[in-house]
């Protein structure tokens, strides 16, 4: 195992990666922007290096500053977390060219999956089902309209290089399509540096279900069950659970096999996630995209399997065997994650501010991955995730019951949070029944 790791990220995920590294006896290095100097993850690390001003382009996306921090501290490996540079193949190559260990998949796998059009085509060739869509980038609105007529409305318009729901929109007809196309193009250029657009048939009543995979050094691709991420606002996840209440044994098995084929198609190593859309009525699924990094919602998988996914990332990156027997993975109980965002619970608008009170729930089956504590300032420069409240129970009912108590006792003051939304979600009949889809939040907030 390598002696040290630099975590090229911030907030809750930096803290979470540092926790496992420390447990494994790996020296940890944090990097931070001027806006984050007071955050807990900076203190948790053995060493911390300032890397620049608050805007991400001048700090967490500044590859030169991050590599300089690695040189200065003698870090032997770099863990990118999620977001920022985690899916940047050029950065992964720079890290290895520097003689450091990249805690992530091969850069070629990141590249192949990073372009969503390429990923779709690749999956189709590998025998993984994909939705009707475009096989080459769509470059103008007339071409988009022609393609949409072929695919059939409604269609989803999205950035080929995109992620995080940014620039994605649904069009029910040609007028909406042309507007959506223009918006998607400008966002795609601004956020992802590429104007390439992809159209896909939109499944209205779909569940968003993803498969956790782990590529081993002997080339085997393991699966570690699914996560249901259908509770979304603005195409971004708000709550997740495993197992999915909407996926039966036969469909699950087909999805797990497709995820293995996806991983094999790109020679995957380490932790990754194959995202799918499940059409519950048709009892069928299509490939959506692959995230070539640790996923925000990975704790629910850890809670039902007892496997520390960050530990497996470190082991695979170091060329070693994983810590568990791949033939005997046991799945126990049910786990949910609730993303606590700094946003108002009605319209979901951002609410930066200073945290004056922070009291986390605790107890049996409760895990809180938090990026902040009382006294911290939450700035407008980064995403609104404050903490992940994760809950485990022997059954879904027990997990939801524990979640209700935990949400009620989680106290955060000084800014608005969506805790009230989570309380309502847990009280809603639709969520409680388990038969919900990605339009659930829109129905709760008409």
């Amino acid at each position: 195992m390598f002696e040290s790791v630099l975590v090229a990220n911030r907030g809750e995920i930096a803290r979470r990666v540092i926790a496992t590294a420390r447990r494994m006896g790996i020296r940890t290095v944090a990097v931070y922007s001027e806006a984050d100097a007071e955050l807990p993850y900076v203190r948790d690390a053995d060493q911390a290096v300032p890397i620049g001003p608050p805007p991400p382009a001048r700090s967490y996306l500044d590859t030169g500053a991050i590599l300089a921090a690695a040189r200065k501290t003698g870090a032997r490996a770099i863990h990118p977390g999620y977001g920022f540079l985690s899916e940047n193949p050029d950065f992964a190559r720079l890290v290895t060219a520097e003689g450091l260990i990249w805690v992530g998949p091969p850069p070629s796998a990141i590249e192949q999956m990073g372009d969503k059009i390429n990923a779709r085509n690749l999956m189709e060739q590998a025998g993984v089902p994909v939705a009707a869509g475009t096989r080459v980038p769509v470059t103008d609105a007339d071409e988009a309209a022609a393609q949409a007529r072929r695919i059939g409305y409604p269609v989803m318009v999205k950035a080929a290089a995109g992620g995080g729901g940014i620039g994605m929109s649904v069009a029910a007809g040609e007028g909406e399509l042309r507007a959506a196309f223009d918006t998607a193009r400008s966002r795609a250029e601004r956020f992802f540096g590429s104007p390439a657009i992809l159209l896909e048939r939109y499944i209205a009543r779909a569940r968003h279900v993803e498969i956790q995979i782990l590529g081993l050094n002997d080339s085997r691709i393991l699966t570690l069950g699914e996560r249901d991420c259908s509770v979304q606002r603005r195409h971004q996840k708000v709550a997740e659970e495993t197992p999915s209440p909407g996926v039966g044994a036969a469909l699950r098995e087909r999805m797990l096999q497709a995820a293995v084929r996806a991983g094999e198609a790109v020679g995957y190593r380490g932790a990754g996630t194959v995202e799918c859309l499940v059409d519950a009525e048709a009892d069928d699924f299509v490939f959506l995209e692959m995230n070539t990094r640790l996923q925000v919602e990975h704790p629910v998988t850890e809670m039902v399997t007892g496997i520390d996914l960050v530990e497996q990332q470190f082991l695979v990156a170091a060329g070693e065997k994983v810590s568990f027997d791949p033939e005997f993975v046991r799945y126990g109980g049910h786990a949910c994650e609730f993303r606590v965002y700094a946003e108002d619970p009605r319209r979901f608008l951002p609410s930066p501010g200073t945290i004056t009170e922070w009291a986390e729930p605790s107890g049996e089956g409760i895990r809180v991955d938090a990026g902040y504590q009382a006294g911290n300032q939450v700035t407008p420069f980064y995403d609104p995730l404050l903490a992940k409240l994760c809950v485990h129970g022997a059954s879904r009912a027990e997990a939801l019951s524990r979640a209700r108590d935990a949400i009620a006792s989680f106290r955060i003051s000084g800014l608005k949070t969506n805790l009230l939304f989570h309380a309502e979600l847990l009280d809603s009949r639709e969520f409680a029944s388990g038969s919900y889809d990605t339009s659930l939040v829109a129905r709760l907030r008409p």
Partner: protein
Amino acid sequence: MAEIRAEMVANIWRVVAAEGEQVEDGATLVILESMKMEIPVLAEAPGTVTKLAVAEGDVVQEGDLIAIVE
């Protein structure tokens, strides 16, 4: 006269309207950016933009004046 103020801490990403411009009810005046989200600031009634108190790249605090529409 309507004073339009920032609802949250944000960066001014785009200034869409100009001083002296006639705007419709619901027209976008300015686009804020906060926490990776773009938030349009809209005119709440038709009128003339008599003041634009922000420029692109500014940081506004909750309650700061953005524009006046008369």
